[in-house]
């Protein structure tokens, strides 16, 4: 964990010692900063909400030593560096800034973890597609854990996991000779096929009364945390990158929202926040990680990060924890005794779209 030395930050005249103390991952031990007045921040934001104007206004706000801790935090965020290039001190400042802002915004103590990759850990994931029953509990647990937007307008609802429904298909005797062209001796092709084991376009928004359905199998899909991630390659500002312990993460404060990464991802793992995410205060998960599930802002891209706020502290990702059939396995690929290593050792595994050479660390297997 980070040192306990409280960083001194601008406009902190009113701050109590407890507010500046870096929080641990457990919000219970953390005392929130005094909530700043909400209204003045709103009007302030509106006034300078556009473009380079905002930079000028931000400088002005800092120079005039605005009492509004909220606004000051916003402007300081505006000028901060790419997370990867920050010094430890700067990371700490950014973290305290965010903790104070989020705590005031959501009315509860929020912690922003900045724990880095742990030595000797390379995260890996394996999913048993034979076991998956398509209940989508993983999807909902993920949304709750990772503070995804829950709005109702198109684009406001964000889910990182998609469960694809695949047809079992059906072959019948009477169709076996339905070749084409009809009436000629030689058949160029047949019509006896059914789309068995295939995802039909647009059909994964299934909504059955009960799962599993008789005529379907399921394949959950989310970010594959590729070893050769095409999304990272195309990012013009290096805001998305691979962390030392494997996951591909995003510095939400550095993202310019160009969406090249979304075009490059062969697994449709990334989402754009088309507006300020809808995150009710009561539902907000206060245990967050800087590169993980902290609340996002308008206009940036987000994706699965294997619950860094949990996994860097030895816990399972939310989807693994919630899976009722134990289809999801997560662990350290470098540890031969981990579940994932055991799966790779003993089961038949495959990776999705292996032909694209992205080398996912997310494996599918069956038993």
């Amino acid at each position, binding site marked *: 964990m980070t040192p306990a030395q409280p960083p001194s930050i601008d406009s902190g005249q009113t701050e109590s010692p407890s507010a500046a103390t870096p929080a641990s991952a457990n919000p219970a031990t953390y005392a929130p900063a005094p909530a700043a007045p909400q209204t003045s921040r709103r009007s302030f934001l509106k006034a300078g909400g556009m473009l380079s104007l905002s930079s000028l206004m931000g400088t002005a706000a800092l120079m005039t030593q605005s009492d509004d801790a909220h606004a000051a935090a916003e402007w300081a965020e505006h000028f901060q560096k790419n997370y990867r290039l920050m010094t430890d001190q700067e990371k700490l400042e950014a973290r305290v800034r965010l903790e104070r802002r989020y705590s005031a915004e959501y009315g509860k103590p929020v912690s922003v973890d900045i724990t880095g990759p742990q030595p000797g850990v390379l995260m890996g994931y394996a999913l048993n597609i034979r076991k998956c029953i398509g209940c989508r509990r993983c999807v909902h647990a993920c949304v709750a854990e990772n503070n995804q937007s829950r709005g109702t307008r198109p*684009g406001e609802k964000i889910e990182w996991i998609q469960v694809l429904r695949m047809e079992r298909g059906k072959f019948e005797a009477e169709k076996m000779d339905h070749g084409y062209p009809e009436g000629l001796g030689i058949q160029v092709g047949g019509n006896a096929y059914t789309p068995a084991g295939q995802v039909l*376009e647009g059909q994964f928004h299934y909504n059955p009364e009960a799962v599993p359905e008789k005529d379907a199998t399921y394949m959950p899909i989310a970010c594959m945390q590729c070893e050769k991630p095409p999304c990272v390659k195309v990012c013009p500002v290096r805001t998305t990158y691979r962390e030392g312990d494997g996951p591909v993460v995003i510095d939400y404060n550095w993202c310019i929202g160009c969406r*090249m990464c979304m075009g490059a991802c062969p697994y449709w793992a990334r989402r754009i926040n088309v507006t300020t995410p809808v995150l009710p205060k009561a539902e907000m998960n206060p245990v967050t990680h800087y590169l993980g599930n902290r609340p996002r802002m308008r206009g940036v891209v987000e994706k699965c990060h294997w619950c860094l706020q949990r996994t860097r502290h030895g816990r399972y990702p939310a989807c693994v924890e919630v899976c009722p059939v134990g289809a999801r396995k997560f662990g350290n690929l470098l540890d031969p005794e981990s579940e994932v290593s055991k799966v790779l050792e003993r089961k038949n595994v495959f990776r999705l779209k292996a032909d694209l050479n992205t080398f996912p660390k997310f494996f599918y297997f069956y038993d």
Partner: protein
Amino acid sequence: MRKLIRFATDYANYVLKGGKQFYAWMATLAVFIVAMLYVFYLQNTEGLIVTGMTSQIHEGLYFANLVFLVGVAAGAVTIVFPAYVYHHEGMHKVSVLGEMLAITAVIMVMMFVFAHMGRPDRLWHMIPPWGIYSLSSMLGWDVLVLTGYLILNIICGFYYLWCKYTGNPINKRWFIPLVFVAIAWALSIHTVTAFLIATMPARPMWHHTVMPIRFIATAFAAGPALIILIFLIIRKTTKFWIDDSAIQLLSTIVTWCLGIAIFLTLSEVVIELYARTEHANGLYYLMFGLHGLTRLVPWFWSAVVLMVGAFILFLTPAVRNNMKLLSIACAMAFTGIWIEKGMGLIVPGFIPSPIGEVTEYYPSFVEWLMTLGIWAFGFFVLTILLKGAIGILLGDIKFGGQTAVAK
């Protein structure tokens, strides 16, 4: 220095004075520009939710126009190249007008970049030393070559005008090499833009090698088609006469680049639809629709009709030698390529999504307003640049001369 200030004031005086028609034109454009500023404000307070873009189809009208206008910018080289490489007399006289068009188009591209971004307030993140420049990103390269092209054209264009203004001879020792650099650079901007989308195997519709040459071919058809239209307007509204030979050569270039573009499109259709793999789904959606969703089908076929129709018209001597009919053919080619290379290329790249979801994209009113506004701004800038350039070419703006007033 004094000369430079005189140049600026003479230029401004000449450009700002005009007839009723001129002011009416500029005022109309200004209305659209104001509307654009409003929707830009909306987009950066409400978010991209005011557009039709989603996580499924996250590039739309803005990106389509961006791609198309990079082509128009590159297309300006169809004037500069014959002028300086083949010493074409008629072209040489007007080559600076092509540079003015290139400047305008690049400015418009940059505005569409701003419109497209989720966080335009953070674009400085791309610019070192404050930001990070990523050499592995095609978008980074695109910004680099576009900025370079803008600077090259400003230098070449305005140095030429400056020499005409002051009456000094052009220093050919650095000017001519720079012009040749700009010619090669024009190819680079559109090639890199093609790479931008063609280097994504996740989008099979774009992932093929024909993309750069198809981009160049369509650019060298749409660009000069627009230039011909502008030339015809200039001939009509100013004293400046553009030689028939220049227009004739441009129309030949349009004809054969359009022919190549049609050929490449046809090849793609045959190759993709013969095997009809899943990778052809995007094209199939564009041509016939997929899962009952057919939003882009009329869009595609109208582009086919316009492009093939224009090609036939260009091949007909009675049309290409008649300036009135020629302008119709040019407008058809320009519109056809705008449709085909814009939304017709960008949107189906996302349909179906990499995991098989078929959704559709509808540009919202905000997007149309923004697009119209940026085009209006483009014409606003182009009018100013062309008017000034023509004033200098005509000798109406001259160092030491009386401040002349445009007709």
